[in-house]
């Protein structure tokens, strides 16, 4: 058995694409945790989606056995963290289970916005930081400059380890540094059990699998445990660790990281952030938990076929088991019928949920344009939270609308700082600060309305800086905004699911863009269909979808009647997949049109 002093718990944090997953893969290989032949790129990224998109969505925990140069055996627990800004909340959870972090920095790109954001998160958790300069094999690697940047962000450049995860250079140095620099976990083996739940997933056989970090005590199968916040008690059926597949063990001890199963059927009984203790000998104080992840972006998800409503609910419930940050509640739309209002951490998160519903649950769904959450003060003095534009009261009832703002940190080469500031101004941004960590790199901070950065801000930032600028942001409260609701009428009928809340100054152009986009998306029907944008009773833009004038298949090739029938069936099927609003058939993508409107 590995003594507590030989346990090391660490995370890898990095800006996206700086090579976090590759480094993790290499550590697994070097310690023999995974045989070379089993090696699959991005081993820790289990979901197909993660591998396809090259990002990590869920945290993972893997145990590595390592014999260090001092001749002793060590148990290294690697807790992987997501790399996208949407998921910084999950990063924070993982860091709470560690004593150290490898901060990976691309030797060519240098310090980026998320490098800083993740570094600050790690420092908040008092972690020992080991800077790792990766990709030194690249011809444009500039490790010396990156070391200078380390000084600027308060790290000691002499601590940095130079590696190429791709080529396998420097991996031993990383492992030795983890052993030598990351402190062993504190905690009392004899004290009552306290284990922090830092993640969970749902297994159809074993129920909720909690990913835990033991702070005090021991846990073993058969033990009666209690969730300190959830209050419920369960009997432990399995404990173990991942390497990367699950390995059951007789017990997990103070300082260790692993999993626990206790036939918990409902994920709500096993909340991430809760503390597990022993029912018979409970700890007096729970561990500090986390803030609940706050959804920032909201959208309606509706089944295309209304008969799929219950299936959609079940699918969302199952997704929520593995994704505590997904929120949803039933809502009804005049146009779309019964569906769910869902809360997401960001647009990427929303896109991932949408894809998983379609791919893993074979559901045909329709997503409405995402919205942020507005705080509305009514003339009556009452306050209201609105995350669905359709719910915004009439203008004369509203005294004030406050919208969420974020503090955006943007790192950019100095030559693009003008372009970046211009973009922020266009998006109703307020300048906060500007710093030069090195003479040719700028760190700009702006306060920006969340609604303004939600859609295409990141893409535009990239395109205006030739891909160099990086972005991180965090919620920074609410501020009053002159917001109005833009309604869309199709065939003279208001389609609630197409309403959007926009700033008054942008309402004209937004309205025009939206009706133009919708005209190109809504196919010709048997009659003319007017599309209007209005604010209150006032129509501000109008387009018309012309009626179908000709629709008849020409030649029947060699009497291939089946083919003809299939074509007709397909056409009919296509009609069915559209949403019937009044007399008008609206294709699914129309409801996301607002996302596709070009700004320029």
């Amino acid at each position: 058995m590995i003594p507590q002093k030989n346990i090391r718990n660490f995370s890898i944090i990095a800006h996206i694409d700086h090579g976090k997953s590759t480094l993790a893969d290499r550590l697994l290989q070097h310690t023999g945790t995974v045989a070379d032949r089993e090696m699959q790129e991005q081993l820790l990224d289990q979901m197909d989606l993660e591998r396809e998109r090259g990002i990590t969505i869920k945290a993972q925990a893997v145990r590595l056995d390592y014999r260090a140069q001092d001749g002793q055996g060590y148990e290294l627990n690697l807790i992987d963290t997501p790399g996208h800004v949407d998921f910084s909340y999950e990063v924070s959870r993982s860091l709470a289970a560690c004593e150290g972090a490898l901060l990976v920095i691309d030797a060519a790109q240098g310090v980026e916005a998320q490098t800083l954001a993740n570094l600050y998160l790690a420092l908040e958790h008092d972690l020992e930081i080991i800077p790792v300069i990766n990709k030194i094999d690249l011809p444009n690697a500039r490790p010396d400059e990156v070391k200078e940047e380390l000084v600027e962000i308060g790290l000691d450049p002499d601590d940095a380890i130079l590696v190429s995860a791709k080529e396998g250079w420097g991996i031993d140095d990383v492992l030795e540094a983890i052993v030598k620099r990351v402190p062993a976990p504190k905690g009392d083996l004899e004290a009552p059990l306290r284990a922090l739940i830092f993640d969970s997933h749902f297994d159809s056989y074993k129920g909720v699998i909690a990913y835990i970090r033991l702070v005090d005590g021991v846990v073993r199968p058969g033990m009666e445990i209690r969730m300190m916040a959830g209050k419920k008690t369960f009997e432990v059926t399995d404990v173990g660790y991942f390497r990367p597949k699950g390995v059951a063990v007789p017990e997990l001890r103070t300082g260790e990281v692993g999993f626990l199963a206790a036939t918990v059927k409902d994920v709500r009984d096993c909340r991430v952030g809760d503390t597990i203790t022993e029912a018979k000998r409970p700890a007096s104080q729970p561990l500090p938990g986390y803030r609940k992840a706050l959804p920032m972006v909201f959208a309606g998800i509706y089944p295309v076929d209304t008969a799929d409503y219950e299936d959609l609910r079940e699918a969302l419930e199952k997704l929520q088991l593995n994704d505590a940050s997904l929120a949803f509640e039933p809502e009804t739309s005049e146009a779309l019928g019964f569906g769910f209002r869902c809360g997401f951490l960001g647009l990427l998160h929303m896109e991932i949920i949408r894809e998983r519903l379609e791919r893993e649950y074979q559901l045909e769904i329709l997503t409405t344009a995402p919205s942020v959450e507005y705080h509305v003060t009514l003339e009556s003095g009452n306050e209201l939270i609105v995350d669905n534009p359709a719910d915004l009261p009439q203008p004369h009832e509203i005294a004030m609308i406050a919208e969420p703002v974020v503090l955006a940190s943007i790192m950019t080469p100095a030559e693009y700082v003008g372009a970046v500031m211009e973009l922020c101004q266009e998006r109703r941004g307020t300048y906060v600060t500007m710093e030069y960590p090195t003479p040719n790199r700028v760190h700009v901070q702006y306060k920006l309305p969340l609604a303004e950065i939600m859609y295409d801000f990141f893409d535009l930032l990239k395109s205006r800086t030739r891909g160099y600028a990086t972005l991180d942001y965090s919620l920074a409260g609410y501020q009053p905004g002159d917001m109005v609701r833009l309604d869309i009428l199709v065939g003279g009928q208001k389609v609630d699911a197409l309403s959007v809340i926009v700033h008054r100054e942008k309402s004209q152009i937004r309205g025009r863009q939206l009706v133009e986009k919708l005209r190109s998306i809504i196919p010709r029907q048997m009659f003319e269909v007017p599309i209007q944008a209005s604010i209150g009773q006032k129509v501000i833009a109008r387009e018309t979808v012309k009626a179908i004038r000709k629709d008849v298949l020409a030649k029947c090739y060699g009497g291939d009647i089946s083919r003809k029938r299939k074509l007709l069936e397909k056409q009919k099927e296509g009609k069915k997949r559209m949403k019937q609003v009044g007399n008008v058939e609206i294709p699914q993508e129309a409801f996301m049109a607002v996302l596709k409107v070009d700004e320029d």
Partner: protein
Amino acid sequence: MFGMYIHIPYCTRKCYYCDFNSYALKGSLKEYLEALKREIYLYGQFGFRELSSIYFGGGTPSLCSPEEIREVLEKVRELFFVPDDVEITLEANPEGLSLERLSGYRDVGINRLSIGLQATDEEILKSLGRPHSLEDFSLAYQWANQAGFENINVDLIFALPNQSFIQWQESLKYVAELAPTHVSLYNLEIHPDTLFHKWFNQGKLRAKEDEEELEQYVWAIEYLQGKGYQHYEVSNFALLGRQAKHNLVYWHNQHYFGLGAGASGFISGERTLNVRNPEEYITLLQQNILPYAERFEVTKEIEMSETMFMGLRLLEGVSLEMFQKRFGISPYSIWGQEIEDLVAKGYLETSNTHLRLSRKGLPLANQVFMAFV
């Protein structure tokens, strides 16, 4: 009674818009025709059936010499009953024809020609990738007359990307001047896997708006009717008594053999579809195997549905008596609501004897047909 469709999947080259099962011919047709004769033989084993029409389609069947056509027809006559007056059509492309060749076809029993003209403007012919000029067509048409063909169809395509309304009018006037017994007008469809589709996606080629296409179509109907043609099917026009008997087999949803690579047939309650690839087709027949890629049973529901939407392509519509006799049920009992809606909207018309497309419904036929699938 059966129709017989015989597919010749070769052309001198592939036109840019074409998605039919055809390939540029390299080498000889010999092996293919041997396989075809083998297929005729195999179908003959089902019994000595009477044929009501024979149709050589393609591709370009006129790539076959009269002698080659003779051999195929001889094989057909050996194994099927072919009455003397049966319509036997050969699709011909203007290029590569001669008086001698056309006389040859006439001598071996071809009594109807269908010539693919498609357009009369030289620039447009070029832009379609057609391997012939208007002059080629003009000569071929004269020779066909001289060779004694009394029953000739001419194909034209409309809604072409670069075709003005006036050019369309001119091409129809040109054809009407020749007074063929039958004219087919097809609107261009841009199919996947064609050069046209690629160009369309690249924005190099603009599809006609509905309005322009409709204008061309409506004008053509009125013009040809003025010249004495009966508009008897969505895309087809004929002088009195010259309707295409073979195509009527499809529109009446009757039975036919489909022979040749990629051909489809409808026999004993089954739709058959042959393998598309000619080499594969040849290989299978060399082993005496009927070269099906697919065959599936046509249920009564499907047959009723197909009888409706194919029948509605005919301007006279679907005979209610025929339908009742064939299926033992009235279309109203199956699609009562749909028919009522379509009649109310003015797309369908009813008489005591038939259910048919209205003038308003004609250009929107698919929207009507969809109700029956």
